[in-house]
């Protein structure tokens, strides 16, 4: 990551030094070349990674933010969880090295199709609909939905009693489906369980979620209580792409060995998840084989609140996550802005000065890109293009998605700038013997440049913030860091302020730079410095 950043600054200086001698096409080309040179090493790295699969690691994916007790980062920012231990055991039995790959919850299944990883283990319920898309292993955990309400709420014995109530749950879960099928219940879906539980008593009457989630997130909260019988029966399975049936067999064999050896029981006991249901399924005794040390550690961490100093100390632990996120955000924003500027400039020239078909092509591009949501474009580039054989590294996909999108906005900025320059300027240039190209390059564009500086700066700030959408293509930027830290520390407030401050700090130098350039290029200001002598 450091090397490309260096090469970017050095090659960017060249056009700035001698803008008079360098043709605009050359400038554009060098911009594109810089961006390409950044992409190529990344693409080839991705290709290499595939070749070095000689060791053949078992690549498994999960959405680890706010994902206790499945697979999550603990307070020391180390990956842990009962699914983490199970997949590690399975890999060991298969004689392979486990390799974790982060993805968003929504992207987990599509990622299998893209061959980003071999399997997904992330509390995915085995359902017939999902079985149409992927292959499932035998269940590695069987549980139920647990209703949680505010302490002192009258007992509830069936979901029908929740009629007229607002009940929270997570997106794309069996619990959500159950709520939707109960008449008159108003389901409200969250992306983080901790937020759902925090809303009980205010926005929500109760929360219906898988038992392990309830145990870990609601269990330690003194103001909440479990109520009602176990609802439904959920089996978690490991998902594999439909094109790898042999992998499912290997996973099942490894899982069977873990059950037989008591390994699975040990893991679930330590995590406090060895239930009678599981004992029955494994045909083993209901007594846990080990004390629930992992659960206790987690619950203790949840109760830890403390003052500002404790908070700050906790941020220190996360400093590497924040820094990496900030660097990624900065990198992807600056590079996609360069792409947007280069392409946008080209599009503006095509639209304003191009002959009929070319100007139409530019107009079509601008309307198409500007009229569709950036998130959809990103998802299309990352998850859609592989269908036609184009696989992009997440960074490249994010960069292209942002850059191609903002190019449309930049094009319109530049078009406005070009059209704002009085016709007489081009006429004067032509009357002096310049060609149309020379007039554009030496007379019109330099004047338009100053005009469009404020809107372009504005767009950069906007892009910096929109870059948070790249978390949809598995990148962990500053916003990704926020979600991770907040869900691990249960501190959305303090972390939010901290991350917001970092976004501001990243944007500020660019705003200042633009302001400085603007005042430097302003002819009005220089006019007021020296009084005319008439």
């Amino acid at each position, binding site marked *: 990551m450091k090397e490309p950043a260096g090469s970017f600054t050095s090659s960017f200086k060249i056009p700035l030094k001698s803008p008079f001698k360098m043709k605009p096409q050359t400038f554009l080309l060098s911009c594109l070349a810089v961006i390409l040179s950044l992409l190529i090493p990344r693409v080839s790295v991705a290709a290499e990674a595939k070749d070095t699969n000689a060791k053949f690691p078992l690549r498994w994916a999960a959405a680890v933010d706010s994902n206790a007790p499945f697979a999550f980062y603990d307070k020391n920012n180390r990956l842990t969880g009962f699914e983490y231990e199970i997949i590690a055991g399975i890999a060991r039995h298969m004689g392979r090295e486990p390799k974790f790959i982060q993805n968003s919850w929504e992207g987990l299944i599509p990622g299998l199709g893209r061959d980003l990883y071999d399997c997904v283990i992330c509390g995915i319920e085995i359902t017939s609909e999902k079985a149409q898309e992927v292959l499932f292993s035998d269940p590695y955990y069987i549980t139920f939905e647990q209703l949680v309400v505010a302490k002192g709420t009258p007992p509830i014995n069936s979901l029908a009693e929740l009629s007229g109530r607002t009940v929270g749950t997570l997106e794309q879960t069996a619990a959500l489906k159950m709520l939707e099928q109960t008449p008159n219940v108003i389901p409200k879906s969250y992306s983080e369980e901790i937020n759902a539980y925090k809303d009980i008593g205010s926005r929500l009457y109760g929360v219906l979620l898988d038992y392990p989630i309830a145990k870990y997130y609601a269990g330690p909260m003194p103001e909440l209580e479990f109520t009602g019988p176990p609802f439904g029966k959920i089996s978690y399975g490991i998902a594999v792409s439909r094109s790898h049936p042999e992998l499912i067999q290997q996973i099942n064999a490894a899982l069977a060995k873990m059950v037989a050896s008591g390994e699975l029981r040990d893991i679930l006991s330590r995590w406090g998840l060895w239930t009678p249901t599981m004992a029955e399924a494994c045909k083993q005794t209901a007594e846990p084989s080990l004390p629930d040390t992992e659960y206790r550690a987690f619950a203790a961490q949840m109760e830890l609140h403390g003052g500002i100093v404790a908070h700050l100390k906790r941020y220190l632990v996360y400093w590497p996550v924040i820094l990496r996120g900030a660097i990624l955000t900065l990198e992807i924003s600056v590079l996609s802005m360069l792409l947007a500027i280069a392409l946008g400039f080209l599009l503006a020239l095509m639209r304003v000065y191009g002959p009929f078909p070319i100007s139409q092509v530019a107009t079509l591009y601008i309307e198409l890109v500007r009229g569709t949501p950036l998130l959809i474009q990103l998802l299309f580039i990352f998850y859609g293009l592989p269908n036609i054989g184009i696989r992009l590294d997440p960074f490249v996909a994010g960069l292209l998605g942002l850059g191609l999108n903002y190019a449309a906005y930049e094009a319109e900025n530049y078009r406005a700038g070009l059209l704002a320059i*009085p016709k*007489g*300027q081009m*006429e*004067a*240039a*032509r*009357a*002096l*013997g*310049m*060609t149309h190209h*020379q007039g554009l390059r*030496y*007379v019109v564009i*330099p*004047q338009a440049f*100053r005009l469009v500086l404020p809107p372009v700066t504005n767009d950069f700030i906007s892009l910096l913030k929109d870059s948070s959408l790249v978390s949809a293509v598995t990148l962990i930027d500053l916003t990704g860091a926020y979600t991770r830290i907040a869900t691990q520390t249960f501190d959305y407030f303090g972390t939010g302020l901290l991350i917001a401050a970092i976004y501001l700090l990243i944007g500020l130098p660019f705003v200042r730079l633009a302001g400085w350039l603007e005042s430097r*290029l302003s*002819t*009005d200001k*220089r*006019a007021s410095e*020296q*009084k*005319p002598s*008439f």
Partner: protein
Amino acid sequence: MSGAENSIVHVRDLRKGFGDTPVLKGVGFDVDQGDLISIIGPSGCGKSTLLRCLNALETLDSGEIRIAGVTLKRSEGERKLDSHFHELAHELRQRVGMVFQQFNLFPNKTILENITLAPLVVKEEPREVAEENALRLLEKVGLGGFANRFPAQLSGGQQQRAAIARALAMSPKVMLYDEPTSALDPMLVDEVLSVMKGLDNDGMTQIVVTHEIRFARDASDRIIYMEQGEIVEISDEDEIFTNPKDERTRRFLHKFL
């Protein structure tokens, strides 16, 4: 009145229309080397369009323009313009300087940069040469010491003189002026006109579209009177005022004199 063969500007049957509206309906005249010609006439008579055609800022519909050895020729109904035509037009512009009513100086450049830009870009002169020339020309139009000012820091008259210097920097054979004093405060008109008179004394060929009847009478070698897209009369400066050949000319001039 001299023969067409000696003339530096030679125009025959020039026609130009915008859409269905004919603006120039077959205009022809000659200009001798070193002459100062004024074109006068009521608003909308086509005099500005004529000037812009001479510089190929507007493309003629048909007719012939020959200036300083470059000929632009187009016959009626010839729709497509080949690249050779555009090359000739470009060639023509390099031999003709133009000064606009609104000056059209480049506001983001100093006066010196305004003047040196075209020599640097088009003629690829070395910077020292271009700057030396520019300073000499600024001296000539009375703007020595203004080289590093920006256009907005100059009065209208000063800006128009700078624009003349800018045009002269390309060493044109003919200078065209499109109402060069119309945007000026009356107090500032004379400083521009005197620069033009000075150029006339130096032997520059100049064609001026103007409303300054007094200047036209005092400085012109000949005056062209236009009305409704046609040249009504071409006369020596005294003749047109004392004894106009055409009734329309008399009527127009009567309003001024």
